[in-house]
């Protein structure tokens, strides 16, 4: 314990000192070219441990190469211009690197609720150009199916995610990679695409086949073109004409094994080796949150962006529930979570690591981690400096004498306070009855003294008719006028409503956005098979640059763990966050589905009655007729007729 305490203090001291020099150190490190250099060559002895730990961040940093120069900024809230100038000087990474590179990584973060969050990231980088004339035909690590999709449909960026369950921000904090429940797909096409809608339609159908998902249900009624919320994450986002962007969600999509299997097939090692052996569907889908995603984007290979490469990032996030899968015992292990242990890294991977978040556990008072590792790493992620224990799977030593790694986390205490997420949002439908309703979106700014702007994107299906003039935005009981509103009204059976606005959230406040809507009655064939279950409305997307507590690492040329490098940041004081609200489940009035024949018959009868009466009126000719004679007279006439006398 004393050793650990020394370790941490030494580490803190080192950080203060090294933060100034880190840039220089990293350059120096890259110049040595030892990117595959082992972090630890020998098992550290007890006496050396403290010093080694103190060295560790530097060692770790040294290992992060300057491969990425400047990733694109995500959509900034204010839509500011992005400076593409890469900071720092040139870092020639001209070492004879293979043209493609594969990294894998698993981050485990014990959550305060007792749940555990595991995030897999697999990154394939390939220095090639799918858009050039001659077709790329030789594939090594990059999956051919996706490569062909990119070149055929002139895709510039593709982001697709399948999620089961809803990420509970207030209990779990921010995820490394946010995703809405159901399926989400957003694609930037190259400027050369002329018929974007047609290409989009084809692309969704192809992806539907690749991922075994119902993406073919994406059509014009659930596709929008956000004007500000989804900026390209890769390079070349200066020309952001949102005509080339398509965004769609399928909130009802159910994610299961048949989506996981094709996703795993895209990995170079499949599920045969490396971290992917842990991905067993019987465990993964027995969890409270599961999200798998594929992100394809072009990134810079060096600082000047002379060469670009394509990045394929496959991520899988899963939250295991304490009570359903932990059987009530506050104890986690890889075997318990995934029913597998690790025996080797993927042989094709240049790096293969497991990070365990131990920030809240510096002294081991929260939980106990075994086997213990001496490797520590620090990363600034989501506006917070986190400390991780690192297990490098490329080192045989990690697996120990049993040749298998089974990480074990044993909880010791249940207390502990989670840092409240600075930005948090929720949404619900208010009102009763099936005629009208009101959508409430609540956005919480938990920052004590900073206000920041957020971009809210709402895509509402056409069958909820939004009354945009009833839109109100209030914070702290006062009207908060959005500085930018982009509203595209819906067209029946053609396109959804799109509402985007930029709202400034005052510090420590709740901002409420309400808008009223009317529910439409649909044709009986347009209802889902279970109409009384309701209709899903996709999540609102809230994108924001949130003020950071610690200085963010703007130097994206540094090699960082994958989980901290997805959203590039361009200023130290804030970091990019995207959060998704709950999808809504809205009931619509339904006709009686058993009645079509009856309704047709009855209505036609009524129309026929109307027609008949008019026809009667129009065609009848009128005669004067004598009032009919009384009975006596008629009898008399009959008698007179028999007598041969003229009637009366």
């Amino acid at each position, binding site marked *: 314990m004393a050793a650990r305490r020394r370790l941490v203090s030494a580490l803190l001291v080192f950080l203060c000192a090294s933060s100034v020099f880190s840039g220089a150190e990293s350059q120096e490190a890259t110049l040595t070219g030892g990117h595959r250099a082992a972090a630890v060559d020998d098992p550290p002895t007890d006496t050396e441990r403290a010093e080694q730990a103190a060295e560790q961040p530097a060692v770790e940093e040294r290992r992060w190469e300057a491969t990425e120069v400047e990733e694109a900024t995500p959509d900034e809230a204010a839509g500011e211009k992005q400076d593409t100038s890469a900071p720092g000087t040139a870092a020639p990474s001209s070492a004879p690197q293979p043209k493609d590179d594969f990294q894998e990584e698993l981050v485990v973060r014990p959550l305060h609720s007792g749940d555990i969050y595991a995030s897999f990231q697999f990154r394939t980088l390939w220095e090639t150009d799918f858009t050039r004339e001659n077709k790329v035909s030789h594939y090594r690590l990059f999956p051919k199916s996706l490569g062909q999709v990119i070149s055929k449909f002139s895709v510039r960026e593709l982001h697709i995610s399948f999620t089961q369950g809803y990420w509970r921000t207030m209990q779990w904090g921010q995820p490394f990679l946010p995703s809405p429940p159901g399926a989400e797909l957003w694609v930037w096409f190259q400027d050369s695409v002329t018929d974007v809608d047609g290409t989009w339609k084809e692309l969704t159908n192809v992806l539907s086949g690749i991922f075994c998902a119902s993406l073919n249900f994406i059509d014009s009624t659930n596709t929008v073109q956000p004007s500000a919320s989804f900026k390209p994450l890769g390079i070349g986002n200066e020309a952001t004409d949102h005509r080339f962007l398509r965004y769609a969600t399928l909130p009802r999509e159910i994610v299961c094994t048949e989506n996981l299997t094709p996703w795993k097939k895209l990995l170079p090692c499949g599920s045969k080796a490396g971290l992917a052996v842990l991905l067993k569907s019987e465990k993964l889908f027995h969890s409270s949150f599961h999200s798998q995603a594929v992100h394809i984007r072009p990134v810079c290979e060096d600082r000047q962006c002379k060469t670009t490469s394509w990045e394929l990032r496959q991520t899988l996030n899963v939250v295991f529930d304490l009570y359903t899968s932990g059987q009530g015992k506050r104890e986690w292990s890889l075997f318990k979570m995934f029913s597998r242990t690790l025996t080797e890294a993927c042989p094709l991977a240049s790096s293969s690591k497991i990070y365990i978040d131990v920030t809240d556990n510096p002294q081991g008072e929260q939980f106990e981690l075994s086997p213990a590792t001496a490797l520590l790493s620090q990363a600034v992620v989501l506006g917070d400096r986190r400390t991780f224990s690192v297990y490098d799977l490329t080192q045989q030593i990690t697996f120990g004498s049993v040749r298998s790694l089974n990480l074990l986390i044993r909880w010791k205490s249940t207390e502990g306070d989670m840092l409240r997420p600075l930005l948090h949002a929720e949404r619900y439908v208010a009102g*009763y*009855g*099936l*005629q*009208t309703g009101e959508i409430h979106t609540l956005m919480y700014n938990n920052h004590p003294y900073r206000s920041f702007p957020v971009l809210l994107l709402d895509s509402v299906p*056409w069958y909820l*008719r*939004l*009354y*945009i*003039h*009833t839109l109100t935005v209030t914070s702290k009981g006062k009207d908060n006028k959005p500085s930018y509103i982009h*509203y*595209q*009204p*819906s*067209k*029946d*059976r*053609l396109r959804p*409503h799109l509402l985007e606005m930029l709202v400034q959230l005052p510090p420590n406040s709740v901002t409420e956005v309400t808008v009223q809507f*009317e529910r*439409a*009655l*649909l*044709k*009986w*064939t347009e209802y889902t098979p279970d109409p009384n279950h309701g209709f899903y409305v996709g999540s609102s997307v809230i994108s924001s640059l949130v003020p950071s507590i610690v200085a963010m690492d703007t130097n994206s040329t540094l090699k960082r763990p994958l989980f901290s490098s997805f959203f590039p940041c361009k200023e130290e004081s804030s970091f990019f966050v995207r959060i998704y609200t709950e999808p809504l489940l809205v009931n619509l*009035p*339904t*006709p*009686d589905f058993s*009645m*079509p024949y009856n*309704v*047709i018959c*009855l*209505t036609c009868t*009524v*129309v026929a*009655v*109307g*027609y008949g*009466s*008019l026809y*009667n*009126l*129009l065609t*009848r*000719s*009128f*005669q*004067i007729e004598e009032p009919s004679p009384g009975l006596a007279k008629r009898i008399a006439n009959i008698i007179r007729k028999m007598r041969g006398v003229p009637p009366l």
Partner: protein
Amino acid sequence: MAAPLTLLLLVAVTVRAALFRSCLTELIAERVEVVSPLTAWKRGKGAPAAFSGGVVLTPLIIYLFHFLVDYAEVTFMLADVITAVALYMAVADYNKQVFRKQKYALEADRYPLDCLELIRSPKEMYYIPLKVAMFYLLNPFTILCCVAKSTCGLNNAIIALFILTTIKGSVLLSAIFLSLATYQSIYPLTLCAPALLYLMQRQYIPVNFRRFSFWWFIAQYAFMYLGSLFVLVCLSFFLLGSWDYLPSVYGFILSVPDLTPNIGLFWYFFAEMFEHFRLFFLCVFQINVFFYTIPLSVKLKEHPVFLIFMQLAVISIFKSYPTVGDIALYMAFIPVWNHLHRFLRNIFLVSCVLLACSALFPVLWHLWIYAGSANSNFYYAITLLFNVRNFPCNRTNTKLRRRRKETREAEAVSRTERRHASGTSFRFLQLSYAKQTELH
């Protein structure tokens, strides 16, 4: 005569103003019987200036809303007042003509004895215009429409002005108002037949297809009508800068994409329709409005004002998004033919059904939409009943027609008979007519 009308207007405006101030406004504005997607103020208010779909109000109305958004209540009350006054003046003018005709006929002794009861006394006729205005202004349906700010009130005002200008014999204004009404919703197009008949009757142009004057008049009217329609359409184009509103508004009226429940026949029928029969039935249903114009014009060519009434009734039944405001307009004309009420069939039943339906609409709507204890069939049943009720109204007219025809035939049959029998009551009527003429 102006005093009672002023009083009536004051009462009507007071009632509306009181309702505007009450908490019922919101409730009424959401009633599907009162507002349809085509007439909902709520939709117009939310409409963006750039017409990019999702809005089914005509551009001129949207611009009107933009300017009058703060004076909406006054505008809608004014529209009702204009309608009432226009109807009042139109009916007064029409009655004068009827009176003159009757007078000539009486003097020429052309009426048979047994149709004495059909001849209106001047005293009756004196109050008819006021009754018409009252039927319109104090009709609960109209009041609801006004309080809900349904643009149906504006459409009614335009149609009333069209009727007034037609009856006054102003060809140009009649064409202009007709084009305005057509521009608002396609259906008033069928009113051009009665307008033509009336104007020709007034200018003593025989309705004869072989006559040049007949065709020349039709060409004139069509020119004025199409010209003003063209101006309106172009004006809308220049206001919006695109033609998007044409498919958006008129496509909406004709293809019935919005199946929000209303009092008409379309919504449930097309919600339950099999997809491949949809177009066919759409045509069948839409043709109903336009088709009846031809036989009705042939049959009623002597009575164009009655034809207007019939057309309004047919439109209010067969239009794709009817509201109670449309029914209120044709119901306002009922006093004009009050001397024929003895020929109405099932008058008690019909009025009971009307009352029952009006009460049951909100009840069953609540049960379906809010309580969840009924389903759509309940509401649909009431709309069916309501529409069946509307047809007997027509059937009453059948009776009326029969009587009129009888009158004419009776003329021929019993002309000689008539000469001898000049009953005292008949003589009295003639006398009162004479007196009235002096007054006039």
